[in-house]
């Protein structure tokens, strides 16, 4: 497979697997896939599978935010999920993935962190989201972001009594959610814009832009990837495409 061949297809408005340029693969969400987690979800985009789990704990708040709970997102590109991934500490791509998912949730204020305060200055809930790849076949950023959000929606707080978290005892209280930020990553290959690439397409992409938008189309985080420059018009087209696709992804939740 070479770039000319790929471009000749895109020219005709069609992808290798028969999809249109702006078309995602089949998206499926399964909830409560890990009973050990406070919340969990598995998202698949075609053969790509990502799993996200939420763990909650009680900790001392940060000094500058004494009445706010904390959020942490971590991503593991497991060597189980692709021949390209290796064991060891998270590589640069896993770190970027985690930070992009984190910023989408944080900057959209998806979680009302003040409602996670137990006692100001003393104890607040911390929400840790871990996203792990099960089968990595492209589209990881968008699938991870959707999995993280789905896991948050699935989460139920554990009981907390006498300063001890009782993990075996889930309450029916959800994590206080305010927004549903959706990440759409648009890839530029030559003059064409596509979403949800398979690795063969990703390989020939010049640049990508991850655009996270809320339901009311507020853009809450951006991440440009790839070493090719974008024009302002290209950026605007990419954002338009993200705003067009986000409701479709959100509707799967």
């Amino acid at each position, binding site marked *: 497979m070479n770039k000319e061949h790929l471009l000749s297809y895109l020219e005709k408005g069609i992808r290798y697997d028969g999809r249109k340029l702006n078309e995602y693969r089949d998206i499926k969400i399964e909830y409560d*896939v*890990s*009973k050990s987690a406070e919340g969990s979800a598995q998202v698949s985009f075609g053969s790509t599978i990502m*799993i996200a*789990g939420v*763990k909650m704990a009680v900790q001392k708040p940060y000094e500058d935010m004494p009445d706010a709970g904390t959020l942490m997102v971590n991503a593991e590109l497991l060597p189980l*999920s*692709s021949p390209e991934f290796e064991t060891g500490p*998270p590589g640069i791509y896993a770190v970027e993935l985690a930070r992009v998912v984190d910023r989408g949730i944080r900057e959209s204020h998806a979680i009302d962190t003040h409602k996670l305060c137990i006692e100001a200055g003393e104890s607040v809930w911390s929400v840790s989201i871990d996203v792990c790849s099960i089968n990595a076949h492209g589209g990881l950023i968008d699938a991870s972001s959707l999995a993280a959000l789905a896991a948050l929606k699935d989460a139920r707080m554990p009981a907390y009594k006498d300063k001890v978290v009782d993990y075996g005892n889930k309450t029916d209280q959800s994590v206080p959610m305010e927004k549903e930020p959706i990440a759409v990553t648009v890839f530029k290959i030559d003059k064409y814009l596509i979403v949800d690439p398979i690795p063969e397409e990703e390989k020939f992409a010049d640049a990508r832009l991850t655009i996270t938008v809320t339901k009311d189309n507020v853009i809450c985080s951006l991440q440009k990837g790839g070493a090719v420059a974008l024009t302002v018009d290209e950026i605007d087209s990419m954002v338009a495409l993200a705003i067009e696709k986000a409701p479709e992804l959100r509707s799967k939740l």
Partner: protein
Amino acid sequence: MKSSKSYKERFDKRGWEECRPMTAKVGIIPEADGSAMFQVGNTKALAAVYGPRDLHPKFMQNPKTGILRVNYNMMPFSGHGERVRPGGSRRSKELGLVIENSLMPVLNLKEYPNSVVDVFIELPQTDAGTRCAGIVAASMALAHAGLEMTDMVAAVAVGKVGGQLVVDLTYDEEAYDGEGGATDLPVAVLPNSGKVTLLQMDGGVSREDLKEAVEMAKRASMQIYDLQKKALKESFTEVQK
């Protein structure tokens, strides 16, 4: 040792020799050369096999044979209580080693000098018996990858809870603090030869109990073996369709 039994009925009402409900599926990770899932009760193990492939770093290469490398990992949210910090622990390292030793006897990697067969075991959710579930899944994944094997490997944790020998302990049983306490004894068995390839124990039992416990593990393994064969056959009929 006292013969009185403080554990009269299992927490989940199972028979003493009854395993929790089990499911097995082969071919769950298309990127891998072989893959499988095995779930027993609330313990779920995923396994992927990559290889035989080039081994790096090069100094680890063996010109006489390929090597097996097993990586065991709990997903950060899969623990019983707080989040498990990612990046491995002394425990996960040790388990990788003993699982490797449990699978090696059925493999013949002489045909693949300087290569490695990588097995990755991941646990998304756990309720005891994770190393055994990992072995069951890994064995299916190795067969699915088309590697030459002289037998499958089936595994189950047996043990003694409150004076009573039981099969397939849950976390609550492992943590039993009534009289007699809890002894945990994970065993891997080669179903066709009846030989044991993994044997560990924490607790205290008599010589007679040990012998009986291993026999119980062998009986349970036959049931697991049937499930492994069925899942493998199903994966191949799917390919034919």
